[in-house]
C-alpha cells in the first residue's frame, strides 16, 4: 500500500464521523470497520465538541479534518489553520464547494487553496473531480494525494464515471488515490479497490444505513475483497464463452 505523506495506513478505509444515530453506534461502527482514519470537522462550539474529541481520541485512529462547507479560498485556508490548531495535525481534507446541489468541488479555487496550504506546511488531501488536468494541477501545487469523487457527496450512486477513474488511475500510477464520496454499497467500494485505488473514504453509506455497525463491517470486507482481487491480477472480460472444463478426453456418448 502506498504511503500518505509518509504514513502507511493500517487499511484502506477512511470513515466519516457524521450522521450516526448515536455516539455509541459511531464508536462500534468504527471498531467493526477497522478504519484507520476518521474524518472530522470544525463547527461553532456549543458544548459538545470536547466530548466528541475525547471519543475520537479513544478510537486510536488517524484524524483527517475537513474544510466542509467552505466556498472560498480564504474561508478554506482559515478553516485549515484552525483545524491544525485544534486537531494537532498537518493533514487537511480540502473541500471547496462550487455547486450547492451537487456539492461539486470548485476545482479552480481548490488548486489555489492547495498551493497556499502546501506553502503553509499542510499535507493536503484534495476532494476533487475525476478531471485529469485538475489532478495534474493539484500535484503541481504540491499535493501528494488525490481524492476524486465517485459520485456527489451523500448520493450513494457509486462510481459515476468509471472510465474517467480508470484513466486517473493509469495516469497517476504512483500517486495515492482515494475515492472520496458517492459510495453507497459495499460493491461500489470493492469496485474502487478492484480498479486499483489505494483507499476509499465514505460516511453516509455507513452512518445512514439501517444498521450502521453491520454496514461498517460489510464495507471492511468488501474493501478487503476488492484489494485482494486487484493484487490477484483479474482476468479480462470477453464476449464469447470459453469452456473451463477440459474439452480433450470427453467421453464420446452421442
Amino acid at each position, binding site marked *: 500500500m502506498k504511503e500518505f505523506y509518509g504514513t502507511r495506513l493500517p487499511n484502506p478505509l477512511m470513515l*466519516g*464521523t*457524521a*450522521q*450516526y444515530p448515536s455516539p455509541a453506534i*459511531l464508536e462500534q461502527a468504527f471498531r467493526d470497520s477497522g478504519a484507520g482514519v476518521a*474524518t*472530522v*470537522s*470544525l*463547527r*461553532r*462550539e*456549543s458544548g*459538545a*465538541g*470536547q466530548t*466528541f*474529541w475525547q471519543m*475520537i481520541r479513544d478510537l486510536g485512529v488517524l484524524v483527517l*479534518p*475537513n474544510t*466542509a462547507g467552505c466556498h472560498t479560498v*480564504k*474561508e478554506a485556508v*482559515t478553516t485549515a*489553520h*484552525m*483545524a491544525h*490548531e*485544534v*486537531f494537532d495535525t498537518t493533514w487537511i481534507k480540502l473541500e471547496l464547494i462550487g455547486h450547492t446541489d451537487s456539492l461539486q468541488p470548485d476545482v479552480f479555487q481548490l488548486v489555489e487553496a492547495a498551493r497556499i496550504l502546501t506553502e503553509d506546511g499542510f499535507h493536503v488531501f484534495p476532494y476533487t473531480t475525476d478531471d485529469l488536468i485538475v489532478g495534474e494541477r493539484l500535484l503541481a501545487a504540491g499535493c501528494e494525494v488525490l481524492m476524486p469523487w465517485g459520485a456527489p*457527496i*451523500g448520493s450513494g450512486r457509486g462510481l459515476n464515471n468509471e472510465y474517467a477513474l480508470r484513466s486517473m488511475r493509469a495516469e497517476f500510477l504512483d500517486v495515492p488515490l482515494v475515492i472520496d464520496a458517492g459510495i453507497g454499497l459495499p460493491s461500489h467500494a470493492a469496485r474502487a479497490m478492484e480498479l486499483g485505488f489505494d483507499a476509499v473514504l465514505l*460516511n*453516509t453509506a455507513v452512518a445512514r444505513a439501517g444498521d450502521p455497525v453491520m454496514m461498517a463491517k460489510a464495507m471492511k470486507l468488501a474493501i478487503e475483497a476488492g484489494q485482494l482481487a486487484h493484487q490477484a491480477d483479474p482476468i479480462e472480460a470477453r464476449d464469447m464463452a470459453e469452456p473451463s472444463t477440459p474439452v480433450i478426453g470427453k467421453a464420446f456418448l452421442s
Partner: protein
Amino acid sequence: MKIVLNGESRAVRAETLAELLQECGFSGRVATAVNEDFVPSSLRASHKIKDGDRVEVVAPMQGG
C-alpha cells in the same frame, strides 16, 4: 462593548480575546477567528477586542 460571538450579538467586558474566551466559558480545544482572520492561540492574550468585532470560536465536530 458589543461584539458578535458565533453569530450572536453580546455585550462583554473582556478586553482581549483570551479574556473573552474565559468570560464566555470556553475551555478545552477551540480555535478562534476575529473578523474572518485566524487568531492562533499564542496570540489570544495580546489580541485586543474592539467594539463590533465578529468572533468565531470553533471546536471539534463530526464530519465526513
